[in-house]
């Protein structure tokens, strides 16, 4: 009974990267030298292998994203497993976990098995699937979690919405003792959020856009931390956006609750003041971009570990949907191809966090929240790595996207740091 990460069969990588900085924070490695990958495995004899000049490049354990949307089934026009996994590869990701809020939601064995089969055919990097907590994500009847766990579900989530009924969620937590799957939770009090489209604050007051109060998220997290404590269960909090929420997570951790949390690149970099132009394609997401103080608190919490990891919440949408008026467009921005470069540009290069820590938060720490395998550069490990040019600059969208959708929050921005190669599951999945 373990999570299945599925990748299409392919040629095992055999390559040697010469003279690169080899940085594996978890293994405590930071040296300049060669890294050998032979037959898809790290280490071994470099003789006869293709050589790559790694001067000025950094080889790191590949990134893991516990929170993406691959829009399959139902909206393959905006993303599918092939395009989404390639998008991940282009961003240095070596494993991603797809949320179940598809059309229809992934809520039974048949749905899961079909996706795993598709991924065996289409996924260029290992892909795992999260299944719904409740049937149809309707918030009432539990899914057959024990069976889903046996078939290889990564976790359970009703992402896109919370399990609003506390009694239902409590039963789900109790049932975790049987099924064993971690919960990854979209936390929101839907009554408080109402029809909101952006963070409630001075900017929403000026723009007249209905606000989503920060406490809408924090209250839901507070409830679930208490329930997890009461039931001795384990929860992961998706896309933390508000400083009040950080306090709830911190309180949970100090109480000994098994609670972890993630934050997205866009919440770490952008704020509500960036919404002035009311451009839904780049600025409308749920949870919304919060205030300046929230962003500062998120960065601090990611540094101090209250927030465990980065997740992109990669949410592709068709152009025609995102061209709607701000209040009527769907929530969500893409993130896989830009995540590292955005955080390298805005956090590492500005001195807010060292590269080693960013790599930790995007790789091993991100894998651990959903019990996914932790990428490592240790000899004998299956090669799951990213090669980064930390000084390369590029403009987001200038050469299109590997994703089928272009609703990036950073469209047109010049970023520093580029993934030049990704080896995932022992296969070369991306190479510039």
């Amino acid at each position, binding site marked *: 009974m373990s999570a299945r990460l599925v990748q299409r069969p392919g040629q095992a990588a055999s390559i040697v990267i010469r003279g690169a900085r080899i940085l594996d924070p978890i293994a405590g490695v930071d040296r300049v030298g060669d890294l050998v990958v032979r037959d898809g495995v790290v280490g071994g004899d470099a003789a006869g292998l293709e050589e790559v000049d790694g001067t000025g490049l950094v080889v790191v354990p590949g990134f893991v994203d516990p929170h993406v949307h691959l829009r399959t089934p139902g909206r393959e026009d905006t993303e599918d497993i092939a395009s989404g996994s390639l998008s991940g590869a282009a961003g240095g990701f070596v494993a991603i976990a797809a949320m179940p809020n598809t059309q229809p939601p992934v809520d039974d064995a048949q749905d899961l098995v079909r996706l795993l089969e598709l991924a065996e055919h289409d996924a260029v990097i290992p892909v795992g699937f999260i299944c719904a907590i409740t049937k149809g994500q309707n918030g009432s009847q539990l899914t057959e979690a024990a069976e889903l766990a046996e078939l290889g579900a990564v976790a359970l989530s009703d992402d896109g919405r919370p399990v609003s009924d506390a009694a239902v969620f409590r039963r789900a937590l109790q049932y975790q003792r049987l099924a064993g799957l971690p919960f990854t939770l979209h936390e929101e009090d839907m009554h408080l959020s*109402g*029809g909101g*489209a952006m963070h*409630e*604050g*001075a*900017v*929403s*007051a*000026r*723009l*007249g*856009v*209905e*606000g989503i*109060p920060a406490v809408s998220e924090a209250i839901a997290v507070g409830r679930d931390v208490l329930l997890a404590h009461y039931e001795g269960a384990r929860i992961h909090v998706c896309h933390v956006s508000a400083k009040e929420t950080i306090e709830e997570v911190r309180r949970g951790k100090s109480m000994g609750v098994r609670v972890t949390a993630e934050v997205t690149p866009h919440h770490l970099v952008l704020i509500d003041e960036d919404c002035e*132009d*009311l*451009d*839904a394609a780049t600025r409308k997401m749920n949870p919304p971009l919060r205030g300046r103080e929230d962003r500062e608190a998120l960065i601090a919490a990611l540094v101090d570990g209250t927030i465990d990891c980065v997740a992109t919440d990669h949410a592709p949408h068709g152009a*025609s*949907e995102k*061209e*709607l*008026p*701000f*209040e*009527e*467009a769907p929530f969500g921005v893409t993130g896989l191809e830009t995540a590292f470069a955005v955080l390298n540009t805005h956090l590492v290069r500005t001195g807010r966090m060292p590269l080693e820590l960013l790599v930790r938060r995007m790789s091993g720490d991100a894998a651990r929240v959903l019990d996914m395998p932790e990428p490592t550069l240790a000899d004998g490990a299956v090669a799951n790595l990213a090669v980064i040019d930390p000084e390369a600059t590029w403009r987001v969208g200038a050469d299109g996207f590997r994703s089928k959708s272009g609703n990036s929050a950073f469209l047109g921005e010049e970023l520093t740091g580029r993934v030049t190669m990704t080896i995932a599951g022992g296969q070369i999945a991306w190479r510039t």
Partner: protein
Amino acid sequence: MSSRRSLIAIGDLSRDEITRMLDLAERFSEVMRRDIKKVPTLRGRTVINMFFEASTRTATSFELAGKRMSADVINVKGSGSSVEKGETLKDTVLTLNAYQPDILVVRHRAAGAVAAAARYTQAAVINAGDGKHEHPTQALLDLYTLRRATGRLDGLHVAFVGDVLHSRVARSGAIALATMGAKVSFVSPPTLLPREAEAGLGVSTSSDIRDIADADVVYALRMQHERMGNGGFVPSLREYATRYGIGHHRLRPGQLVMHAGPMNRGVEITDELADDPTALITTQVESGMVVRMAVMYDLLTESGARTPEAVAEAVAA
């Protein structure tokens, strides 16, 4: 993307630009006192009014403003709900843009709709109200009305009373008044006051109706039931009217009263006050047309061409 100057948010206008438009409106008001109320200023120009949300006075005054300046004016009505209607907005704009209009006047129920529309047309776009966001020409006509009534805007104190939360009139008005050096306060039940309005709009706020005493102008806002969803913002209209309804009993002599209409008589304003000729309510409606004439003229005129001579020609029959 509109290549012409547009008017989507009042904050895009500087104090000088606002003054220029108000001055221009004065000149057009002279035209309205003539026997023949039509000038050839926009002959050969096309104005399309797209009203996706109900309107009486705004739609009428934009139409009349265009016609009084000899433009060809076309009115497109839309009705709407949710997602597909937004697509309709884009497609409608693209379609109408093929006729090469000079001005698109857009009203829509969603904040951000007019900014979205402006991405698909070459025409100058005028925001005639988008959701709770903005209504810049209303703000301009309110400034015009106030400047005429008091002779000044700088230092004037205007209190907006009531449903600020759902009011684009209050939002655009507060920004415009602040730009002109006026003081603005919101006096409102706590449930109808936007959070952080002070920081966001530079206004002072209060839930005590007695705080209108300091104001030179009391601006009663319509209770916008249609934007309240399931409601519950106030316990009852009766309690609201008792606590916040504006009538003669709350006003001191010389205090001016405004309302953007349509009025809920007996709710935010008493019947007697609504009919009091000293209230500026009808003046606001009259101001609407000349201000909208001024805005259309201004947007279609290059800055170098706005000489006194050119303006004199514009208002000549």
